[in-house]
C-alpha cells in the first residue's frame, strides 16, 4: 500500500527532530554554562583581582538558563501551533475542490488526512485529492521542522552569547538564577491545580456533549441502562436507555457490602491495635495489615473472579440458592478485604490522637477498658472515624478492577446481593475499551458517568478531609 511507504519515514520525521532538538539545546546550554563560568573566572583574575558579585558557577548557570529557556519555549509554542496551522493549510486545497462541506464532513476528512499522514493504511481506496493533501502536509511539515530547528538553535546561541558578553562584576547573577529557580518551582506546584482543571474540563466537555443528546434528568433519574441499544441517533434520544439509577444502585450495593465487611473488621482491628496490643505485636501486625493495601487491585479482581465467586456459588447451591456467577456479594466481599487497612490505619491514627487524660479519667471512675473504649474513646474519636469511613467509601465507589473482573455487565435494579449488578466504573471501562467513535452517545455516556464519579468522590473527600482536619485541631 502506497501510504505505508510515505507514512513510515514521516513518523520518524514527525517525532524525532523535537527530541533531537531538545537534546541539542541542552547540550548547547551545558556549553553555555562552561563558557559563562570561564568568563567569570577570567574577569576575576585578569585585569586585577576584582571581587565578583556571585560565585563563577552562578554566572555559568545564568548563561545556561538564558541559552535553554527561550529556545525551549520556542520549540513548545511552535509544536503546539504548527499542527493545526499545517492541517488547515493542507485542507485548503482539498476544501476548495469540494464545495459545501458540513463541519462534520470536514472533521472526517481531517481525520482521514491524519491517518494517511501517520501511515495508518485505512484499507479503503485512497482519494487522490486527499493523498495530494497528505503529501502537501508532509512536505510542509518537514519545512516547518527545519525552520524550527534553525530558529531555536539560533535563539539559543544568540541569547547565550549576549548574556555572557554582559557578565561583569556587578551583575547579580545569583539573585537572578535563584529567582528563576523559584519561578520554576512554583510552576511545578501549580501543576496540581492544572491537573484538577484538566480533569474537570475534559470530563465536563464530553459530558455536555452527551447531555445535548440525552437530557440531563433522563440520565440522572432514568431507571433503565442499556447503552448497547443506542445504535442509531434517532433511537438514543427516545429510548431513555441511559438512566443511571441502576448503575448507581449497583455501585452502592457493592460498596455497601464492602463497607459492611471493612468497617467492623477495620475498626475492631484499630481498637485492638491501639488499646490492647503491646508495642511489639503492634509493630508486627500493622505492616502485615498494610500489605493488604499494597496488593494491586487486579490481584484482588483475579481472587474474586476465580476463587471467591465460584466458592460463593457452590455454597449457595448447597443451601439451594441460585447465585449468579458474577454476584455482587463476591465483588463486595473482596473489595471489603481490600478496604480493611484504609479503615484500620486511619481510625488507628484518630484513636491515638484522643488525649490520654480522657482514658485516665475514665479508668479512675472504675470503668473497664472496653467500657472506656465504647463510652469515651469512640465517641471522642467519632468525627475522625466518620471521616475515615467516608474516605473508604469514596475508594470503594471508585474501585475499578475488582468489579470489572468480578461484577456483571447487565444493569439490574436489585438489592439482592446474590444477583449480578453493574457499577459506574465497570460501565466506564466497557464503554471505552476497544474501538470508539467520539460522537456516539455510548462513548460520551462514559464521560458523563466519569463526571458523576468525580463529583461524588470529590464531595465525599472534601467532607472527610474537612471533618478529619477539624477534629485534629480540636485536640491539638
Amino acid at each position, binding site marked *: 500500500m502506497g501510504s505505508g511507504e510515505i507514512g513510515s519515514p514521516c513518523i520518524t520525521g514527525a517525532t524525532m527532530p523535537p527530541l533531537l532538538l531538545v537534546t541539542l539545546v541542552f547540550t548547547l546550554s551545558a556549553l553555555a554554562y562552561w563558557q559563562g563560568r570561564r568568563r567569570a573566572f577570567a574577569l576575576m583574575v585578569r585585569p586585577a583581582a576584582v571581587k565578583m558579585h556571585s560565585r563563577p558557577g552562578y554566572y555559568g548557570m545564568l548563561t545556561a538558563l538564558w541559552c535553554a529557556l527561550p529556545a525551549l519555549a520556542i520549540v513548545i509554542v511552535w509544536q503546539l501551533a504548527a499542527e493545526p496551522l499545517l492541517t488547515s493549510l493542507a485542507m485548503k486545497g482539498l476544501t476548495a475542490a469540494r464545495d459545501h462541506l458540513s463541519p462534520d464532513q470536514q472533521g472526517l476528512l481531517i481525520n482521514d488526512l491524519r491517518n494517511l499522514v501517520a501511515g495508518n493504511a485505512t484499507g479503503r481506496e485512497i482519494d487522490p485529492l486527499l493523498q495530494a493533501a497528505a503529501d502537501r502536509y508532509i512536505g510542509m511539515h518537514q519545512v516547518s521542522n527545519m525552520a524550527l530547528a534553525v530558529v531555536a538553535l539560533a535563539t539559543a546561541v544568540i541569547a547565550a552569547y549576549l548574556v555572557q558578553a554582559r557578565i561583569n562584576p556587578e551583575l547579580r547573577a545569583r539573585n537572578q538564577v535563584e529567582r528563576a529557580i523559584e519561578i520554576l518551582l512554583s510552576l511545578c506546584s501549580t501543576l496540581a491545580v492544572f491537573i484538577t482543571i484538566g480533569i474537570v474540563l475534559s470530563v465536563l466537555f464530553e459530558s455536555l456533549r452527551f447531555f445535548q443528546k440525552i437530557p440531563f434528568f433522563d440520565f440522572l433519574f432514568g431507571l433503565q441502562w442499556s447503552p448497547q441499544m443506542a445504535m442509531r441517533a434517532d433511537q438514543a434520544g427516545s429510548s431513555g436507555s441511559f438512566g443511571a439509577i441502576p448503575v448507581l444502585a449497583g455501585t452502592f450495593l457493592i460498596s455497601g457490602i464492602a463497607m459492611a465487611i471493612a468497617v467492623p473488621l477495620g475498626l475492631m482491628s484499630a481498637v485492638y491495635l491501639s488499646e490492647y496490643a503491646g508495642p511489639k505485636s503492634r509493630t508486627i501486625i500493622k505492616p502485615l495489615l498494610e500489605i493488604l493495601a499494597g496488593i494491586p487491585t487486579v490481584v484482588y479482581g483475579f481472587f474474586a473472579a476465580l476463587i471467591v465467586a465460584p466458592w460463593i456459588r457452590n455454597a449457595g447451591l448447597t443451601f439451594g440458592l441460585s447465585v449468579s456467577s458474577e454476584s455482587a456479594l463476591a465483588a463486595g466481599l473482596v473489595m471489603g478485604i481490600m478496604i480493611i487497612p484504609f479503615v484500620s490505619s486511619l481510625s488507628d491514627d484518630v484513636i491515638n490522637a484522643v488525649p490520654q487524660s480522657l482514658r485516665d479519667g475514665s479508668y479512675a471512675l472504675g470503668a473497664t477498658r*472496653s467500657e472506656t473504649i465504647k463510652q469515651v474513646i469512640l465517641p471522642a474519636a467519632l468525627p475522625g472515624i466518620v471521616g475515615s469511613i467516608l474516605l473508604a467509601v469514596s475508594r470503594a465507589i471508585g474501585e*475499578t478492577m475488582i468489579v470489572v473482573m468480578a461484577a456483571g455487565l447487565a444493569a439490574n435494579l436489585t438489592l439482592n446481593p446474590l444477583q449480578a449488578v453493574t457499577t459506574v466504573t465497570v460501565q466506564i471501562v466497557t464503554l471505552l475499551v476497544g474501538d470508539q467513535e467520539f460522537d456516539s452517545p455510548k462513548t460520551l455516556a462514559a464521560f458523563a458517568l466519569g463526571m458523576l464519579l468525580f463529583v461524588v468522590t470529590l464531595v465525599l473527600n472534601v467532607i472527610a478531609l474537612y471533618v478529619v482536619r477539624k477534629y485534629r485541631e480540636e485536640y491539638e
Partner: protein
Amino acid sequence: MDRVNVGLAKRYRKERRFRLFGLAAIIASLLFLVLLLGSITSKGWTAFQQTQILLDVYFDPLALDVKNLATANYASLVNHAVQVLFPQVESREDKRRLGKLISSGAAFDLQKMVINNPELIGTNQALWVVAKDEVDMFAKGYIPRNVPESERRVSDKQIAWIDQLAAAGRLKKRFNTTFFQAGDSREPELAGIRGAVMGSMFTLIVTLALAFPIGVAAAVYLEEFAPKNRWTDLIEVNVNNLAAIPSIVFGLLGLAVFLNFMNLPRSASLVGGLVLTLMTLPTIIIASRASLKSVPPSIREAALGIGASKMQTISHHILPLALPGMMTGTIIGMARALGETAPLLMIGMVAFIVDVPHSFSDPATVLPVQIYLWADSPERAFVERTSAAIMVLLFILLLMNGAAVFLRNKFERRW
C-alpha cells in the same frame, strides 16, 4: 461496693468478649491475606515448570531447501518425529491428534535452529520440545483421569500416548524459560511476561523521570517558599484531593487530553507513563513535604546565619537531609503505579501485543494489564500463568517496598 460487685463478673465477661472481637478482627483480616496469597501461590507455582517432550527430529534434506530456510514446512518435521515414536498409529485422525501433543511453537524453534546452523540439515537430533498446554495441564494433574472423556480436553488415546512417553522417559517437566522470555501469545504454552515486564519498565521510567523532579520541586516550593495566601491554600487542597480521586478518572483525563487532544499514540508506554505521573504526583508531593517538614529548623537557621541564601540553604542542607524520606515516598508511589491497571485500560494499553516493546512509543502492555487479559482467557493453562504473573508482580512490589523500608531504617534520623 456491693452494687459494683454484683455486675462485676458480667462486666469482666463483656470486657473479655470485646477484646476477643478485636483479636478476631485482626485474625480474620490476616486470614484473608493468607488465603489470598496461599491460593494464588498454590495455583501459580506450577507455571514455573513446563512439560517438554524428547523427540528425535530428522532434518530431512528433502523438506528443507537451503536457499529458502525460512519458509520450509517445519511443522511436518515435528509431526514426523512424533509419528516415528508411535509406529502403531495409522489412521489420519489419530495422526492429527498425535501432532496435537506438541506445541506449535516447536516448529518455530526448529526453524530458528536451522537458520542459525544450516549444517543440521540431514542429521538426526534428539531435542526437547515444548508440549501443548493440554498435555502440560494433564502432566501437572489439573486434568483428572477419572472424568468422562467428553468432559476433558485430552482424549483417552492421548492419555495412553502421554503415559507411554512418560514411561520411556521422553516426558519431563523442566524450568519454564518461555514464561520469562516470550511476549504474549494465544497459545498458553508459548505465552510469557517479557513483553509486559518491559512495558511496565518503560512506563515506570517515564513516570519516575517526570514525577520525581516535579513532585520534589512542588513540595520544596509549597514547604519553603510559598506565601500563606489563598492560592497556596488552593494548591494544598488540590493536592490532597487529587490523592483521593479514583484512578480511573485519571484514565479519562489521559484519554481526553493525551489521545484525543494531543494526538499521542494509543497503547504507548509514553502515554501510560504520563497518566501514571499525574496519578502518583500527589503521593510524592505529600511524602516529600512531610520529609522536608521533619528537618529541624536549627539546620535552616544555622545555614542562614552564616550567610547562605535561601536557595543555598535548601539545596545544600535541607534537600540532602530530606532526600531519603522523599525517595521512600517516591518508591511507594512507584509501587502503586506499577500495580495500577484501570487508567491504563482507558488509554488502550489492553491491546493483544505479541512483540516485546523496544521504545517508549511502541505499543505495549504492562504487567497488571497482562494479568487482567490472561484472567479473561478461557484456557485452563492461563489460570496457572495468571497466578504466576501475579507472583512475579507481587515479588517486584515486595522488593520495592523492601527497598523503601530499608531506606527509611538506614537514613531515618531522629532529631
